[in-house]
């Protein structure tokens, strides 16, 4: 019998892209489909280095459209398939993932954000939030986990497979070039040893028996002739998505119970916010932080509670208001004032956040 990729729980020192490759192995992924783009390339590199040892597969496609559609094909054939991309590749990925939304197929896409618009820069940015959370020509029914470091990349890549296969919506792990290249330690583990049951994929087409007689027919459509039929389909999915959203939504908060100001950030920027807020609360400032871990669905109830409690919310992001836009929608009608600190495509330091907080409180 083949050995498991990770047999014992231990601390390891890695780059973010390697973490994703190992996590996909640990999650029992069978195959990766991909097309190279910085800064996600080493996910492919490490997956292809590990794949022969653990009898996994890899297909390099001619572009991200193909990478997305072959991922879907793998899923329909009963494989735990995933892909990874960034920037312009993520734009192309929206077409296949829209199809996955429509057909209610599980698929995992790891996005290591780069600067934008277009080709732009390769390392630092949070400018793929709008695209990843609401891209495609549908209603954005997908799950997006935004990671803030290597432990998150490991934990949420594993979780993304389970979420995708459980709820049958495409699931994204949203990192960025900085996390992809950054080096830090984390605990790697075999999910089973921690009691995490991994989703078991099964073929969606070509199954045994006569459709309609021995089993329900497998019907996976992305084309509808009648508007009413489409309406029924979309409303049905929307209702289901709204029902499961509170189960999926995750967040992390600190000091918000008696804060006058809550700093809201996600992903790598959250690390700067955490450092600044912890320092200032130790000095007695009434400030807290709120980090949505899922950007889609957002933890709406908790955001509204927060917005009802604090006077101001400061949104900090390496984008020009992409998180702020999502937050404003979630907090709509609540009294808190929303202010922003926006640095599209460049990093935010704890010192800058600290200065901004001091201006506001």
């Amino acid at each position, binding site marked *: 019998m083949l050995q498991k990729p990770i047999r014992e729980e231990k601390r390891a020192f890695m780059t973010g892209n390697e973490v994703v490759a190992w996590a996909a192995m640990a999650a029992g992924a069978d195959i990766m489909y991909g097309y190279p783009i910085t800064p996600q390339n080493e996910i492919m590199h490490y997956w292809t280095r590990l794949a022969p040892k653990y009898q996994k597969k890899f297909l390099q496609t001619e572009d991200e459209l193909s990478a997305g559609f072959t991922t879907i094909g793998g899923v329909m054939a009963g494989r735990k398939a995933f892909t990874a991309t960034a920037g312009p590749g993520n734009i192309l990925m929206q077409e296949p993932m829209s199809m996955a939304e429509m057909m209610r197929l599980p698929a995992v896409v790891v996005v290591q954000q780069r600067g934008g618009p277009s080709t732009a820069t*390769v390392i630092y940015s949070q400018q793929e939030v709008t695209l990843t959370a609401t891209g495609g020509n549908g209603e954005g029914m997908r799950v997006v986990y935004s990671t803030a470091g290597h432990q998150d990349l490991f934990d949420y890549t594993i979780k993304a497979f389970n979420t995708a296969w459980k709820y049958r919506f495409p699931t994204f792990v949203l990192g960025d070039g900085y996390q992809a*290249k950054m080096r830090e*330690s984390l605990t790697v583990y075999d999910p089973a040893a921690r009691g995490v049951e991994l989703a078991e994929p099964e073929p969606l087409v070509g199954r045994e028996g006569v459709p309609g007689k021995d089993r329900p027919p497998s019907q996976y459509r992305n084309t509808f002739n009648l508007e009413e039929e489409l309406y029924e389909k979309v409303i049905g999915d929307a209702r289901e998505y709204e029902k499961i959203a509170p189960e999926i939504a995750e967040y992390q908060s600190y000091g918000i119970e008696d804060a006058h100001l809550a700093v809201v950030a996600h992903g790598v920027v959250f690390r700067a916010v955490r450092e600044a807020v912890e320092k200032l609360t130790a000095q007695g400032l009434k400030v807290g932080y709120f980090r949505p871990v899922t950007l889609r669905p957002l933890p709406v109830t908790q955001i509204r509670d927060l917005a009802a409690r604090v006077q101001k919310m400061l949104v900090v992001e390496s984008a020009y208001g992409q998180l702020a836009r999502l937050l404003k929608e979630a907090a709509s009608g609540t009294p808190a004032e929303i202010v922003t600190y926006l640095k599209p495509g460049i990093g935010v330091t704890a010192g800058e956040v600290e200065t901004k907080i001091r201006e506001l409180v």
Partner: protein
Amino acid sequence: MSRIVEVYTGEYAAGKSENALNRALEIARCGRKVTLVDLDIVEPAYTLRPIQDELRRMGVGVIAWRTEDTAGLGEAGTTLHPAARWALRREGDVILDLGYGTEGIRTLNLVVGANTNPRLKVYNVVNTCRPLTAGVRDVVEQVRAMGRSDGLINNTHLGPETTVSVVQDGARKVAAAAKILGLRVTATAVAKSIDGTIGRSDCMGNPVRELRLMMHKAFW
């Protein structure tokens, strides 16, 4: 002491640059003329580029691109610096910092005289806390795949969490791998900032080199 010509190579994120620049600083502290050469054309994200002026102020000559010289080239901007090609013709000691893996070591072919220089030594930097080089057999396979190696450097660490036992555990594995490979363990590299002290040699009797960590400043 004769001329020192050393090449630092190894796995992705093994600590090649940190070890190369610390070696150059050590040589410079002895009052010797030394040039540190950034030969990493594999990975554009972590290079000596952003800290080159600081290194020069510390007495090390540096051959590395300046970001403004490569602006506009985007991801294709990682070409060999012309001065790097002729680095071995320089007076004094030369420390070459390669890109990672087998692609990285191939870059050495672009440096005039590298394949014929009798003093040139290739050191393979190993961190056994990295999953692909976690076991003795993994290290042996990795070093063999690289082609040439004249010695191993145990650079086992867990970043700020590094303890003496983490380093010593690495020292045992690297020594075991070196024995199989018929190579010497040139040194165990230990950051000044680690919790505890190891002394002048590790548990396998190999010399300890103290690292002053600078690469965290080098991520653009």
